[in-house]
Structures are given as structure tokens and as C-alpha cells.
């Protein structure tokens, strides 16, 4: 049994078919990067994994069980923006998930339990390189640091699937490559299963173990909404020849 089974999933909005009959399996520990033109349903797909949208047909199974149709602890997420809580300092942001699970009514801990969670959070922040910014609010952090914080906040919860929605899209190139190193290191360490949407195909090849390209195979000029996007390429990274790369590149233009 596969870790994740995307079982003949179709997503429609009214008459418009966004995703058409996706069917594939993902094993634990794979890092899947998703590229595709704007509006081809990448984000819709991620939202279905996240649980904010559900398939019109088919189902997504996690270890044989259907995914919950609302966001829960199985899946962690980092968005391009607004991923951290502006009213909490860095360490409070990271402590939050532990506080929520240990104090179901108040969502806050005190005393020794709080101290234990604080130590764990501080270690987590250190591993993403934010040990100098424990008590800063997100607005005092740069964009790259905010995304590091968002990663730390999600990863402390050890989600079974980590979803990344263009997490580095708004960052400078230099910062971005730092973030790549960080993501690779964290993935190694925690054996995460990751889905990441990106616009940057080289980022996709560099980070992923498997690259998916979303594209429409068929377009009916009289009814452009009739056919949805599919996974047109499913490439294990590392075994790819030059011509495939170029044809993907032309397709994405």
C-alpha cells in the first residue's frame, strides 16, 4: 500500500474542469515539486491535499484512509505569506502547536510544562538559524526569516505531509538558496514527505526527488473549460535527459 494514493481525482468548478483524472501514488519520504503554468490547478491540488477543498470525483488516501476534508495535524503548510502569527514572538509562534495539544481548553501552558515546550521550541528555532530572534515579532524579521519561522512552526509538529505553496517565491535569490539548503537539511533529518509548488523549475529539480508538471493535454478551442490539467510529466529527479528538460521549458512558456 502506498503512503499517499491519489485515486482518480477530478476537480470541477461548475462546468470548468480544473484537474482531470489525476491518478498516482507517492511513497513516504518523497519530495515532490510541482511546476506548471499559472491557473493550471497546482494550488487547487495543494488545497485538496490540505483539505480546504475536496475532489469532485475520486479520493485521496493517506495510508489507505481518506484524507480529512478539513485542515488538521496530518498536514503542515507554509504559504507564501501570512504563515506566522503577527501577534506572537518567534518563540511563541513555535511553541503554539505544543501548547494547543497539551492544553485543550486554554491553549496556554504555565510553569515547568511551559519551560519544557520553550526549550524544545528554542532548539527548533536554532536549527533553522533563528536563535538570535527568539523574542522578535514577525514584523521585525525579514521575509526569509519569516519563512524560516513558518517552517520551524510547522515542523515542530512533525506533520506526516508537509505542503509548501511557493514558500520562497517572494524572497531574494541569495536568501532563496540559503532556504534551499535549510529545507534539504530538515528533510534529511525528519524524513518528511513534501509537496512543494514552485514557479522556478530549477528550484524544482534542485530540491525534489520527483518533479511533476501540471498541464492541459487537450484543449478544445470552442470549449476551453472542457478539459482539465493532468500531470503531464512525472520525472524522478536525477534521471532526466536534456531534451525532456527543454520540452518542459517550452511547455511552461
Amino acid at each position, binding site marked *: 500500500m502506498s503512503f499517499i494514493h491519489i485515486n482518480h481525482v477530478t476537480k470541477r468548478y461548475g462546468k470548468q474542469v480544473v484537474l482531470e483524472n489525476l491518478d498516482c501514488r507517492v511513497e513516504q519520504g518523497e519530495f515532490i515539486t510541482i511546476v506548471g503554468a499559472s491557473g493550471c490547478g497546482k494550488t487547487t491540488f495543494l488545497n485538496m491535499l490540505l483539505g480546504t477543498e475536496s475532489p469532485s470525483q475520486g479520493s485521496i488516501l493517506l495510508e489507505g484512509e481518506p484524507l480529512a476534508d478539513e485542515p*488538521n495535524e496530518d498536514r503542515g503548510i507554509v*504559504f507564501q505569506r501570512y*504563515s506566522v502569527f*503577527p501577534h506572537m514572538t518567534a518563540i511563541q509562534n513555535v511553541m503554539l502547536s505544543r501548547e494547543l*495539544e497539551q492544553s485543550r481548553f486554554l491553549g496556554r501552558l504555565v510553569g515547568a510544562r511551559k519551560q519544557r515546550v520553550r526549550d524544545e521550541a528554542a532548539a527548533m528555532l536554532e536549527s533553522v538559524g533563528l536563535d538570535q530572534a527568539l523574542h522578535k*515579532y514577525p514584523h521585525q524579521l525579514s521575509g526569509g526569516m519569516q519563512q524560516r519561522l513558518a517552517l520551524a512552526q510547522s515542523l515542530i*509538529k512533525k*506533520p506526516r505531509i508537509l505542503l509548501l505553496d511557493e514558500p520562497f517565491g517572494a524572497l531574494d535569490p541569495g536568501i532563496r538558496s540559503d532556504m534551499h539548503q535549510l529545507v534539504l537539511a530538515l528533510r534529511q533529518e525528519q524524513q518528511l514527505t513534501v509537496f512543494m509548488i514552485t514557479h522556478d523549475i530549477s528550484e524544482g529539480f534542485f530540491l525534489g526527488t520527483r518533479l511533476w508538471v501540471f498541464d492541459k493535454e487537450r484543449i478544445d478551442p470552442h470549449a476551453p473549460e472542457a478539459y482539465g490539467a493532468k500531470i503531464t510529466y512525472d520525472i524522478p529527479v536525477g534521471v532526466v535527459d536534456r531534451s525532456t528538460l527543454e520540452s518542459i521549458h517550452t511547455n511552461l512558456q
Partner: protein
Amino acid sequence: MKKLINQHPGKPARWLLGLLPFLLIAMIYTGASNARLAENPNDKLLPAFSSFVAAIDRLAFTPSKRSGEYLFWADTASSLKRLAMGVGISAAIGLVFGIPNGIVPYARANLSPLVVAVSLIPPMAILPVLFIVFGLGELSKVVLIVIGITPFLIRDIQQRTLEIPAEQLIKAQTLGANTWQIVLRVVLPQVMPRLLSAVRLSLGSAWLFLIAAEAIAATDGLGYRIFLVRRYLSMDVILPYVLWITLLAFFLDFALRKLSLWAFPWFHTDERGSDA
């Protein structure tokens, strides 16, 4: 020569320019008052500043012959108490209804139309109803303030709650939060500074309702006193009282702003908070 829109006064010039209209008004008043008093020393419409001082001294620093109270301070205390109760209760109701309306779709479907309908009732029109139902005591004055400003507060809090980015609510759920925990840890703390600014905005109306209620039925309070001495054309009491109410309003607003800056530093650093 720079264009007018690009010329900025320095700090002393700003103060001076800001003070100028006040000085001007004081001068015009003094001139007009002197002119009237020269014609008729018993004129009551524009009393001299010395009459103001005498009136304040009589009300604020001399015990009343009848009750032994210092009327000015007793009036201030009862008005502020009513105002604080009215605004405090309204803010609490605003939170208790505004947050669920903003975050629970079923609550919004259920309560939002009612809140909109209630907010359209002119509060002054139902003042007689309040007097009939709650009597002429403290309660009806507080209730008038509550009815006057609560719908606005609920709607504002509902709106602020809806403005919290969906990403944050999703993130909280992936961190394991249930609805109650999201309200407690994500929504409430972010709505609090917005509640403070909504309260600041509603203080003007709160004063209006307070003074109206006191004018109609009360035995003390700033509004009561103003309307009481109106019978004797006592401008020497009315004008200092009005000035004092203005000052109180200013200090309340100032205190709430400082409180917000101190308690929610994260709110006042982004562009949304800078105007608050």
C-alpha cells in the same frame, strides 16, 4: 519655491499654527464679552473669564450648601461611571457576538441580520421605552449607551475578524487547534487592539447618549448639571462644563491610544496600525 503640498512646517511652527485658532477664538470671545458687559454689567450670555473662575470655584472647590458635596467632582464621577459601564458592557458584548459572527458561519447566518436591524434603530427614539422598562435610575442611562454603540462595535469586530487572513486560520488548524483554541489564541488577541480603536471611535457617540440621558432624567452628572443651570442662563457654568467634557474625552482617547501602543506593540508597526 517648492509646491505647497511639499512644504512642511517645522515642529515649533506646527505648534504655533495649531494653537493659533484657539487663541483667535479666545480673543474674539473676550472682545465680544467685554463689549456686552460694558453695555450691561449683568449680561449672562458671554460672561467674563472671572465669572468662569468664580463658577468653577463655587462648584469644584466649595462644598454644596445643600448636600455638602463638591458638585463638580460628584458630577464628573457619576458621568464617568455611567460612561465606563456603558462602554465596558458594549465592548464585552461586541466581543462576545462579533467574534463568533466573524468566525463561525452558522453564527453569522443566525445573528448578522439581527445585528444589522438593531443597528438601524435610532437609539434616541427608544429612550422613552428604556425609561419605561428600566425606570429612571442608573440602569436606563447605561442601557442607552449600550444600545447606542454596541451594534457598531459588534459589526466592527465581526469585520475585523473576517479580515484575519484565511492562511492564519488554516495554519492554526494544521497546528492542531480546534475552533475554541483558534478563537482564544489567534482571533481574540488580534481583535483586541482593533476593539480598542473601535471603542475610541465610539466614545463620541457614547458621550452623546450619556448627556442626552442625563439631560432628561438624572439627579447628578455633567449633562444633568448643564441642562439644570440652563434655566438660569448660567453660561458661566455651562461653558466650563463643556470644556471639561471635551478635556475628559480627549484624555480618554489619549489613554486608550497609549494603552493600545503599550499592550499591542506588534499592531502599531505595520501600516494597518499606524493610523490607529
